[in-house]
């Protein structure tokens, strides 16, 4: 049984490649939505001790926007988008100023609209990401509706890692960073397979 504690270099490379293919499609989806160039980093497979998770991403008290989705199907897990508060605003602005400028002036709750825009962007990117991984692995993966929170980074990221606490003291995240150079914003996209899904994913890739 493959667990976080005994992942080999080959396993890590395979997970990175899965992240790469998923994120490539997600970036394309975002790029089409924005009609703009999106840069993305090579994914990083982070294995973190639970007590150090909060130091990740600029400290536990940094104010971030998180969009959280559950993944159902053959390889359950979580998906989390994290943006700096200002970057989330910039992203919303970049989308809405091109298409919704009239609506923004009307009687719309601005905050609610912003949340909705971010949730929908996450939804579209997640759809592209999971679709690509599904095709690659033959595993069925679908996402829940997105949930939104704007709060301390520690409180937000920990919500997605509770399942790891039930099996050990480490968490694993497949992290891809997105950048929009023109808007000077960047965000993180995390795929967080549930502990039991690691084996399933690696087996589907022929390295279990």
């Amino acid at each position: 049984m493959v667990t976080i504690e005994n992942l080999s270099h080959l396993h890590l490379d395979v997970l990175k490649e899965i992240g790469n293919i998923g994120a490539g499609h997600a970036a394309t989806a975002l790029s089409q939505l924005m009609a703009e160039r999106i840069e993305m980093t090579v994914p990083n497979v982070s294995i973190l001790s639970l007590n150090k998770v909060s130091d990740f991403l600029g400290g536990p008290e940094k104010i971030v926007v998180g969009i959280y989705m559950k993944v159902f199907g053959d390889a359950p897990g979580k998906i989390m988008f994290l943006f700096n508060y200002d970057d989330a605003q910039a992203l919303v602005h970049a989308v809405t100023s091109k298409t919704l400028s009239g609506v923004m002036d009307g009687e719309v709750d601005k905050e609610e609209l912003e949340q909705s825009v971010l949730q929908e962007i996450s939804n579209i990117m997640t759809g592209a990401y999971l679709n690509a991984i599904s095709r690659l692995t033959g595993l069925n993966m679908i996402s829940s509706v997105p949930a939104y929170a704007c709060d301390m980074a520690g409180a937000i990221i920990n919500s997605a890692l509770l399942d790891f606490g039930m099996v050990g003291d480490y968490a694993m995240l497949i992290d891809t960073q997105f950048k929009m150079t023109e808007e000077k914003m960047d965000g993180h996209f995390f795929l967080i397979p549930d502990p039991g899904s690691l084996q399933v994913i690696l087996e589907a890739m022929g390295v279990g």
Partner: protein
Amino acid sequence: MFADAFQIGMAELKVTQAPDKLASLGLGSCIAVCMYDQAVKVGGLAHVMLPDSSIFKENFNPGKFGDTAVPFLVGEMVKLGAVHSRIKVIIAGGAHMFAFKSEDSLLDIGVRNVQSVEEACSKAGIPIVARSVGGKFGRSVLFDLSTGKVYVRTINQGTVELSMG
């Protein structure tokens, strides 16, 4: 004021005495269990992540679970000179950060964490004298062992002071 405190990460715990300070930053559904004996100024903080250790068979961290953190803190404090009957508790955390409409509230880990700590405290005969739990927001907790005061910081509501008094 959080800077000179010992940082207690997820599933960790620490027991010490005045003038030390203990802190847990960015708590979501996790709970900071702050235990204190005013007379000797001995106290401890556990950063509880999950309610129930019974699913776990192998060795684990006692600070991770509500049902194990409470008796472990008491035991370690007694070793440093605390007296069981004088120990009091303040708890903070147990929020529900992401609400899914379809979700059953029984699955709310924050609520279950609070319940497990409450049960463990009542089993140990230790009173919970103050609390800041629930809601949809993160908290940072600072526990000053010189005074027994617990400061709970949130983004929208500033810092609230809770006292062992």
